[in-house]
């Protein structure tokens, strides 16, 4: 099976859409869509993902341009932080005399 947006029956490539809901927040992945090029992808994203006042900014990127982590490498990638409590702020005790913590 070919990647989405790359076979002959899908003439328009697939794009991933990221929407920022308000100033100060990050762009979040909202979904994906088909579009002939980047400019039209932004416009389609506006129609599909910001119909109900959801956003102030849109990013689009070709799905094929995204490099993903390997789902089979779960252990090496995502299990390493386990047991490393010192990476969390809550691991540390409050020092005497430090205010506003």
């Amino acid at each position, binding site marked *: 099976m070919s990647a989405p947006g790359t076979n002959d029956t899908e003439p*328009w490539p697939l794009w991933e859409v990221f929407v920022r*809901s*308000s100033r100060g*927040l990050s762009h*979040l992945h909202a979904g994906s*869509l*088909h*579009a*002939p*090029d980047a*400019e*039209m992808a932004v*416009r*389609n994203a*506006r*129609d*599909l993902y910001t*119909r*109900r*006042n*959801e956003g102030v900014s849109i990013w689009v990127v070709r799905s094929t341009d995204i490099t993903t982590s390997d789902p089979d490498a779960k252990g090496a990638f995502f299990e390493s932080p386990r047991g490393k409590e010192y990476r969390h702020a809550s691991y540390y005790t409050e020092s005497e005399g430090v205010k506003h913590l």
Partner: protein
Amino acid sequence: MSDQTFRISAGEALTAEKITEAGEKPTEAVANYALRLGDDALILAQRLGWWIARAPELEEDVALGNIALDQLGHARSFLSYAALAWDKTEDDLAYFRYEPEFVNLQLVEQPNGDFAATIARQFIISHFQFELYRRLVDSTDATLAAIAAKAVKEVDYHRDHATQWVLRLALGTEESRRRMIAGLGVMWPYVDEMFRDDDLVESLGDAAVRPSSLREDFDTVTGAVLAEAELEVPEGFVARGGGREGIHTEFFGPMLAEMQVLARAHPEATW
């Protein structure tokens, strides 16, 4: 997703319901003018709605559907306002008038044709409506000004959508270019009618916008896009027009019948 990451709200905007509720009666002349603009938007919305589930891609179904709904919203506002003058409702005006009582431009009733023809029609009407609403926000009639203020932002997007497609179709493949040229050729004869002044507009003074005053900007803006698309402004045949007096092309009747059949078969039905 939490409420905080995706805030969803309708926002404040002028609606047809608010216009009806306010009950600010327009003069007969203002009502007739609102009827024209409302009919343009209504008939265009009806035509565009046909594309849903028929556009080249699902995304374009949504885009054209959105534009149709925007137009329907404008139509509801204009018709609701006009209706107040005659103690009628927006539905009375949309569903229970006959063909010669509709005063829309002949352009908007033209058949959809292929996608390029629809884009050609959309390109022309969106640029026209944008220039019109941009000026109507300064109308001495407060309700017309308020409707225009909301509509101009939406129509700004419609003209961008149409412009993008004119460029892509014209500069795309040999076939898409052929279709874009053909589409413009079919629709352009109806451009002339849009800019004709008449007694009603003259009598309204600064409450209305003189169509002839829009021509220069329309020509400049559309001309620039067509030049970028390496297209000629179509010349030659000019349709006789008359939409503002209730004269319509052969395509209008069947479309109107389809639009009105449900409301006429079941008067006052709600769902």
